[in-house]
């Protein structure tokens, strides 16, 4: 009997179905491949799109979205959702404009304050979700109303921000050959993404987030601090939303209560396009980054085309989105076909 124990080991040693890449990273690979393909197609049609200018703009113009999407990725990985981010961006912008413009606070101080407020707001929502056991959807929807409402109370009009420091920050860019400029905020976005990747895949917190998304009760039974993690996740999302707000206010040097309407949906879309499951537990921050660029690319393509009416614009955006998703599905499906259990549905 005992002689056969190693034998059993041998049996199991047969690497269970062998494949090109592990099903986990597959959506990411697919997303990347398709983005590359899409960009190539664009360039073929409009050679001008190859310029460093366009590439750099892609980063700069989507910086705030990219940043907020990183936070959103964590929320979605944990099996939740955060609808408040768009409003928080607007609120932060207005708050900064008021603090700097009216109260004459130095921008850096204002930044710190804004980040603190946004993070705290996120934490509060997380606490409500955990302790009141209420669906994230409603809690963050309330947050969405509140943040924009506060923005309106601060000002209904749009406030410009004139401050030497802002000007200098905006002038901070690295001119690429070919007229492109890698701006500060683009740098911030990339930095946040990298930080997100590390946080997600290289820390205990990250693992706990995935655990939560996988199965709350199991996670609890494995000793994951569910409450603390939930709160931390929404605090993080609040923080990135605040940071995105700062970036947006640098981007437009103004605070506007109607800014960033519907950004939450763009962010969620970017995350999901990036291959993260909305049900939580599976996905990649890197994928989100590509998802953001993908959306930016679609916008740029439309503008370059320049012949589309308002309605055709919408239709084409949808069509491109569809084409992209379907290709992604196809790729994943083709190489993810497994003979064994688990792929039941």
């Amino acid at each position, binding site marked *: 009997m005992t002689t056969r124990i190693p034998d059993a080991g041998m049996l199991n040693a047969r690497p269970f179905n062998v494949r090109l890449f592990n099903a986990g990273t597959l959506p990411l690979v697919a997303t990347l491949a398709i983005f590359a393909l899409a960009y190539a197609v664009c360039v073929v049609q409009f050679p001008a799109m190859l310029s460093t200018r366009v590439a750099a703009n892609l980063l700069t113009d989507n910086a705030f979205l990219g940043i907020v999407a990183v936070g959103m990725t964590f929320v979605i990985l944990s099996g939740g959702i955060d*609808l408040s981010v768009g409003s928080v961006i607007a609120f932060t912008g207005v708050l900064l404009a008021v603090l700097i413009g009216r109260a004459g606070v130095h921008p850096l101080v204002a930044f710190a304050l804004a980040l603190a407020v946004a993070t705290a707001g996120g934490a509060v929502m997380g606490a*409500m979700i955990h*302790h*009141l*056991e*209420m*669906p994230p*959807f*409603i*809690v963050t*929807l*309330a*947050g969405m*109303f*509140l943040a*924009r*409402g*506060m923005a*309106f*109370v601060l000002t*209904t009009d749009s406030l410009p921000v004139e401050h030497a420091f802002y000007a200098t920050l905006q002038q901070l860019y690295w001119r690429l050959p070919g007229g492109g400029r890698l701006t500060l905020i683009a740098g911030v976005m990339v930095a946040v993404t990298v930080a997100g990747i590390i946080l997600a895949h290289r820390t205990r917190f990250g693992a706990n987030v995935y655990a939560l998304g996988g199965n709350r009760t199991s996670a609890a039974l494995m000793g994951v601090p569910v409450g603390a993690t939930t709160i931390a996740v929404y605090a993080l999302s609040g923080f990135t939303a605040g940071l995105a707000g700062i970036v947006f206010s640098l981007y437009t040097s103004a605070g506007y209560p109607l800014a960033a309407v519907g950004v939450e*949906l763009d962010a*969620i*879309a970017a995350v*999901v*396009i990036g291959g993260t*499951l*909305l*049900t939580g537990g599976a996905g990649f921050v890197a994928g989100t980054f590509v998802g953001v660029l993908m959306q930016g690319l679609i916008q740029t393509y439309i503008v370059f085309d320049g012949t589309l*009416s*308002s*309605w*055709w*614009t*919408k*239709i084409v*955006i*949808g*069509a491109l*989105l*569809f084409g992209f*998703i*379907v290709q992604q*599905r196809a790729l994943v*499906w083709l190489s993810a076909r497994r003979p064994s259990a688990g792929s*039941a*549905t």
Partner: protein
Amino acid sequence: MMPGTATRALAGALPRFSVLALILLASWLAFPGYFDVTVNDGRLYGSLIDVLNRGAPVAILAIGMTLVIATGGVDLSVGAVMAVSGAVAATLIADGQPLAVALAAALGAGVLCGLWNGILVAVLDIQPIVATLILMVTGRGIAQLVTEGAIVTFVDESLIFIGSGAVAGMPMPVVIAAVLAAAAVLLVRRTALGMFIEAIGVNRRASVQAGLNVRVVLIAVYVASGFCAALAGVIVAADIRGADANNAGLWLELDAILAVVLGGASLLGGRFSILMSIVGALIIQAMNTGILISGFPPEFNLILKAAIVVVILVLQSPQAGRIAAAIAARTGITRRR
């Protein structure tokens, strides 16, 4: 119903109705005439009627949305589908087509949209939120394409009647919503559909292995949602005697989802109650009407909304439920669940 489910249903209904009552009461305090209902040339007339009438479209959306959410999905496209169906109905009527044709085309368009969503979700296995996001963007474009961005106005009384007519004093939208709700409840509870939908929402793998035709059920719920959205779209267009492709149903998908969640359904799928979702829709509308009637400056609308939603949250949270149960127990009222 078996005692078990009966009491469980009651336990679910209580907090929601009390929330609704609370909001109505608050509005009444803000505006004494709130509960007055008079008859004005054959139509019931009063704030309460407004709540029902204005709440009808979202309630109708919520019916379809409930089924979709029960399967663990979500339909972001309902707002856009409203715009499409409204546009189709208006343009056809404006071309002098008979009501029947216009209605058929409009609802047909909705069903097609639902079918599209359903196939994306059930066959291509795309995550519902993205799948329907596609139509959310495209749909409004299509609607504007139909109306060329203009507001198509019409004067056809038969269509207008659907929006602002009245049967036995009740505004038409309310009647339609009521009938649809009744039909939907019968459809899911008097057949096995309801159980299948819930089973799929709770454990799709197990449902497949039990021999359910999961794909067909999924497609069916999205079609239902599309149909409801189309109907709501026609009502909204008829109400303002014109199809506003740019704004019809804008952001209503959020209200619909909120209504369902307020109704107690989980976005992860599973147990659902169409009636509770409709109560959810009424809660939302009561809130909006209350804010309008209260006379606060509009800058505060969102803050009020947020405050109210938070209150609802606390009232409906299981925690509150437990506390209530404890109090009930102490005061001798035993509530078995």
